[in-house]
């Protein structure tokens, strides 16, 4: 095909514009509009480890006195805090996961406070068994959330 000088210029101009617009779109999509981190194996492991330990601990609250669990509560609090700080360190793109950690921590903190104050005396003999179920479900949602994230290239 024979192109006149003006047509040749237009062709390059359109090609340039196309590439530029794709670059802008891609940068906009990845950089601004989608604040999301990639799947992180360490986050997955932290969540699954914490789930097992938290659920097993809270299940004991119905039958064991607070004094007998004080060390275990301090231990799980530290582990949770470490995992939280790890998530926080990933920055704003990780806000969704950080919010989930916040919500799970609120559940656990409330359970530990109820346990310390009255045990299950005012809540029922099987209250903490069910509180542990809720915590397990909360962790399951957070674990599923992490699994929805894309694997980094």
């Amino acid at each position: 095909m024979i192109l006149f000088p003006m047509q040749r210029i237009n062709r390059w101009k359109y090609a340039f514009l196309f590439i530029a617009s794709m670059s802008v779109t891609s940068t906009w999509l990845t950089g601004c509009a989608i604040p999301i981190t990639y799947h992180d194996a360490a986050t997955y492991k932290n969540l699954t480890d914490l789930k097992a330990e938290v659920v097993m601990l809270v299940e004991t609250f119905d039958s064991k006195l607070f004094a007998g669990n004080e060390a275990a509560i301090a231990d799980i609090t530290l582990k949770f805090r470490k995992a939280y700080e790890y998530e926080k360190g990933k920055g704003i793109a990780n806000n969704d996961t950080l919010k989930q950690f916040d919500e799970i921590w609120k559940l656990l903190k409330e359970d530990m406070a109820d346990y310390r104050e009255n045990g299950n005396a005012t809540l029922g003999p099987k209250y903490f068994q069910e509180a542990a179920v809720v915590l397990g479900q909360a962790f399951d949602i957070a674990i599923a959330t992490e699994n929805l994230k894309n694997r980094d290239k």
Partner: protein
Amino acid sequence: MSKFTDYIDGFEDKTSTLAKDELKELIISAKKDKSEFVRLQAENVERWTVMLAAGELTPLGFKKLVSKMDVLTKLETIKLDVAAKASAQRLADGIQKHVIVGLCKLI
């Protein structure tokens, strides 16, 4: 479901505060919902109601557990949000890989 419906039907509710049929219908339909999350929450409410009837939970314990469902809903909402973002991220990465790097080299 029978222990649950028996307990709900057994309430003497002279002021009609409790819409018994609506509550039973809500739980029955939620248990058949296509969303696993909705089914799980319906099962939670049903189980806790039966435990309340059996004295395994006090009214305060029951209320506290029901209020925790709010937190589970917040977590599920974040999960759905992340699913949408991950999908958009796949599109953006695909444009970068196949259009910017691949196609644009050929044109």
